[in-house]
């Protein structure tokens, strides 16, 4: 017998984790951002429970800072795989006074998402949230478990994680605690792209090369001209920046909050082009994200608070 391919292994492992999550928890939810990792995760969930429908809902934490293409895609995809969607709104958290908007032209809603996420988890009594995090993404994630315990405040304690051996995952918890579960832990960015190619998974157009108005700020290429639902610019420009806005041929390597997701210059317009580009890339995809650049352990600190 010939050995299975690495993509077959990764797919089967993720399906195993998804089924464990459905079996070990009362009310799980799958965190769906519309980014490629959560798309692949939802795709795998459909496979895991076929011919049944998904035994859990998709949960989108909406920062209000969206690329319109991502929202169109989200609604199409949810319909396509026959899932139910729950939306947690950061704008609503702000309006309700649960959080305060950051000030200044560099403000981001990234940190605010945590409160909205935890509030939504509480409101719906979700006891496990499936996330698309991968260990190759970021050094704090490299230490994260498949089944990652959260205390009753939603916090992660990296020094007190449960060891995971063989295929045994321990989801036991006390009332009020919950888990984050990461079925794609062992996938790399390249695995994700090769799998998308193998499976022919449709993606939001943002991932492919297109022309866009761009401002370069602190080495990041940010999209100009997007507004939030109230009509305010998501990336307000300083006067001195206005003459520097230019049209560039770019694509996005990750799709998240539009205020902190950077683009890369690229002419890659097909999955094959992207696979070749990722293979040649000398920067991690996180290198395009302003939220990780705030400090050396920015991700660990956010995760401890309850971030994705």
């Amino acid at each position: 017998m010939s050995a299975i391919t690495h993509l077959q292994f990764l797919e089967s492992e993720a399906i195993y984790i998804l089924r464990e999550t459905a079996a070990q928890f009362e009310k799980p939810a799958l965190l769906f951002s519309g980014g490629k990792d959560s798309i692949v995760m939802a795709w795998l969930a459909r496979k895991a429970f076929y011919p049944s429908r998904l035994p859990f809902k998709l949960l989108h934490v909406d920062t209000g800072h969206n690329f319109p293409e991502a929202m169109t895609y989200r609604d199409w995809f949810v319909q396509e795989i026959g899932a139910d969607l729950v939306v947690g709104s950061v704008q609503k958290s702000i309006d309700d006074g649960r959080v305060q908007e950051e000030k200044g032209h560099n403000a981001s809603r990234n940190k605010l998402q945590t409160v909205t996420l935890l509030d939504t988890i509480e409101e719906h009594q979700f006891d496990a949230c499936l996330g698309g995090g991968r260990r190759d993404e970021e050094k704090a994630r490299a230490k994260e478990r498949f089944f990652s315990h959260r205390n009753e405040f939603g916090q992660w304690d990296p020094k007190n994680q449960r060891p995971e051996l063989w295929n045994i995952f321990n989801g036991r918890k006390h009332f009020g605690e919950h888990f984050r579960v990461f079925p794609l832990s062992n996938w790399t960015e390249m695995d994700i792209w090769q799998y998308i190619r193998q499976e022919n998974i449709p993606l939001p157009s943002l991932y492919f090369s297109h022309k866009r108005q761009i401002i370069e700020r602190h080495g990041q290429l940010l999209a100009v001209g997007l507004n939030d639902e109230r009509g305010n610019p998501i990336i307000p420009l300083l006067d001195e920046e206005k003459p520097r806005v230019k049209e560039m041929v770019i694509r996005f390597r990750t799709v998240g909050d539009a205020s902190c997701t950077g683009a890369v210059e690229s002419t890659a317009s097909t999955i094959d082009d992207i696979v070749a580009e990722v293979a040649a890339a000398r920067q991690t995809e996180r290198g395009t994200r302003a939220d990780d650049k705030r400090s050396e352990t920015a991700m660990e600190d956010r995760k401890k608070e309850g971030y994705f």
Partner: protein
Amino acid sequence: MDLLVNPTESSLLRFTTAGSVDDGKSTLIGRLLYDSKSIFEDQLLAVEESSKRRGDAHVNLALLTDGLRAEREQGITIDVAYRYFATPKRKFIIADTPGHIQYTRNMVTGASTADLAIILIDARLGVIEQTMRHTYLASLLRIGHIVLAVNKMDLVNFDQAVYDKIVADYMKFASGLENLPNVTPIPMSALNGDNVVEKSDATPWYTGPSLLQHLETVQVHTETAADAARFPVQWVIRPISDRNDAKLGNLHDYRGFAGRMASGTFRVGDDVLVYPSEMKTKITGIHTFEGPQPEAIPQLSYSITVADEIDTSRGGMIVKSNEPVQTAQEFDAMICWFADKKTLKPRGRFHLRHTTNDVRAVVTEVHYKVNISTLEKSAESKEFALNDIGCIRVRCATPIFFDAYSQNRTTGSFVLVDEQTNNTVAAGMIMKSLGNPDDFEDAGSAI
């Protein structure tokens, strides 16, 4: 090097690294990652910057894996770090574990999913106590393949006599172990790259492969397909719908047992036993999202349908009717104790998690503990503290379905979960069942 993994051919190899502090583990991993271009510029830049800030003399590649704040502050690896790299032939997952004795539990964790262990030796020091400890753990966890990396050969002038003596010393020790893995010794210099990716001119007397050549070609999974078929049930798929599915037809009566094939193979039409009822039936369908499959193979996930209405659910198991599994309430097992604030004593009560089962269990006896530096067994103390390894007897509230760990790593392993904290406090490997006349080694021929 061409970077693109060929997705239709490349298989996966999981390995773990062991060795004492300063043997060159981080240097070796750094070199494999660097030479396979798996380190990115921004990662390297970030590591250079923090090395500078910390006042390190050279770029400290350990900072790539030591990601937690506490690890960076203390300059040590505390937890298992998983690293990834790929060549066109294979994709690799490395479990990088701290080698010190106080991190035995992390080594055991990393080893539990590894197909191969690289054990480093400093050529100037030869085989030391740590080498033996790491080899013992690898054999205990049934890692089938060891690479004995005799490192820092540049510091002993690439002298063949030094290398030969180390290999001979090692084999003498290792042959005393109960289950000796396949050992592949390689002389190398991780710092200069000799015999890491390319064969080195400095060791003309060495005729074997470079480390990477070996990792790319070593066969590790050939045995599992020939093993007894084991399919632990995770979940029952019941669409409860009158929909007509394009591949499966009307779904009204669909009832599929979802799980991952732990070992062996099933084909449609096979006679099977379904636990816990041990009822006989036939496999009528092996399904994936892609449609009906002719067979189920190890490590892949399926939904399996059977001919008769049989009552099983999560925690149950499907096996071939001529390859029954052991069922017992009481058994002996080797364990490694993981908790730092509690000890294990006779009469201790736990939740025992085994495949997809979760049952109450009590430790009825402590047989002995192993001194993992001398491999001596001792029954003097009946109490396990953090990192202790030894043999205990466990009694479960209801029978579980298992094989010996030596036969099957999936159906022979379990963890103990603390009833108060819900923490995973021990890893267990089943040795033999009690209350059953046959030693399970004979189980296959007993029927």
